[in-house]
């Protein structure tokens, strides 16, 4: 058992995927939609994967990688705020402020060094795009009668961002953050999978609370910002593309809505694919222009 759990692929992909499925099933059959226990489950799992990949919290945190778990805890605390605060404009402002603070905290050594090299420009672009995208997404009000794709928009954005971020990170010589983003992607992916199967069977999708949406977006965004700031070989274009899924998710309720088909079961799928387009481009870019070829793992 310990050998299985010690396998990086199990911890990074299989275990979070299964746990995401379990969470979705619990949300569907056991835990009521309004219960704060839901975010407690998500928070516990997110913290478990942070702890497993980055190690226990260090006090005081010195390196940016040591600050990530504290940012996750901050994300959990914000996620527990009442739904009325995490809705509308307040949620957007709160998300923007939280991500701007996270960027400054993670990157202050690089900012203080004053070097505006290509990596730093990419990090600034990533932070800005992910901040705008996540803030706008969080600010979007829930519809009284949501379309089939609506419950999937934020999780699909978090999933796409995490997945492309994971690959860009590993190919950019930051393996641990790649594992962490991979775990977040698989966790969210497990949830999305069950919800989509429910949609296909004509059932009602169990919507994520605004708190969980914030937590998933904030966690993925802060880890991607760290990759952009510190991974020495991460492809700048791939990083910028990885930061775009939240903006694509925003556009799915606006200009890109025309792309969605009328058939209800297809709407979440098409929305997911459109949200994933920048992430797919990011992965292709990172692989094609990988500094040492697309070899994954420590050499």
């Amino acid at each position, binding site marked *: 058992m310990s050998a299985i759990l010690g396998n990086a692929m199990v911890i990074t992909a299989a275990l979070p995927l299964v746990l995401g499925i379990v969470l979705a099933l619990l949300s569907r059959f056991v835990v009521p939609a309004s219960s704060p226990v839901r975010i407690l489950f998500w928070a516990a799992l997110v913290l478990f994967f942070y702890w497993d990949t980055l190690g226990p919290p260090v006090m005081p945190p010195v*390196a940016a*990688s040591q600050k990530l778990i504290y940012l996750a805890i901050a994300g959990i605390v914000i996620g527990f705020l009442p739904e009325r605060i995490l809705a509308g404009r307040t949620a957007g402002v709160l998300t923007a402020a939280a991500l701007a603070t996270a960027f400054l905290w993670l990157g202050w050594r690089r900012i203080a060094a004053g070097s505006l090299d290509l990596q730093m420009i990419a990090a600034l672009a990533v932070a800005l795009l992910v901040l705008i995208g996540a803030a706008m997404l969080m600010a979007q009000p829930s519809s009284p009668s949501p379309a089939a794709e609506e419950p999937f928009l934020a999780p699909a954005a978090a999933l796409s961002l995490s997945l492309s971020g994971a690959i860009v990170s590993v190919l950019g*010589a930051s393996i641990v953050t790649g594992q962490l983003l991979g775990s977040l992607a698989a966790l969210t992916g497990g949830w999305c999978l069950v919800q989509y199967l429910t949609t296909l069977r004509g059932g009602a999708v169990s919507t994520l609370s605004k708190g969980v949406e914030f937590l998933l977006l904030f966690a993925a965004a802060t880890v991607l910002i760290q990759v952009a700031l*510190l991974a020495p070989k991460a492809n700048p274009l791939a990083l910028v593309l990885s930061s775009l899924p939240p903006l694509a998710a925003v556009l799915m309720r606006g200009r890109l809505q025309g792309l969605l088909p009328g058939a209800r079961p297809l709407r979440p799928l098409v929305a997911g694919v459109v949200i994933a387009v920048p992430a797919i481009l990011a992965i292709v870019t990172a692989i094609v222009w990988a*500094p040492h070829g697309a070899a994954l793992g420590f050499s």
Partner: protein
Amino acid sequence: MRTKRLIAALAFAGASMLASAAYADNYEIDGQHAWVTFTIKHGIYGIAHGQFDAVKGAIVMDKADVTRSSVKAELDVGSIHTAFDQRDSDLKGPDFFNAAEFPTISFESTKVEKVDDKTGKVTGNLTISGVSKEITLDVKLLNEAPAPWDATLTKAAFSATGKVSTADFPMAKAADGFGLGPEVDIAIDLEAIKK
């Protein structure tokens, strides 16, 4: 007359002792002749080697009282070199030495002990990725002499060895995950130019 000579001899001896006690030579590490190397267990297989190519620093050596000597050195993390580009990138990344956030590794001595005329122990703080840990290096003075091609240039050569653990620094999780270390053997050979 005898008394005067005795006083003069004592005064000379005293002055010589005082002069030698206050006398400490300053050296600058010669970056072109400095090899800071390390070896670490690589997974279940062999031993991996690496070195830092860019080294700078200063040495103060008090030959009369070695305990008053000191060392300050700095390594450029970006100069890490393991004979394989991809591994170098991995090591410069945030999982290991985190060069973008912490571009240098520093060592500053806090205590120097004499073992014999040519060897000693230098204890100091090694700072990697913003975390300082006390380590002790076994140091040997190999030679000090004017350069054969330039009598005005005097160089001293030192050899040092020591051990650190990856567990003491923010690379612990990644090193453990990849089966590296945790013990790292350090071997330093360097020449220093007398100022």
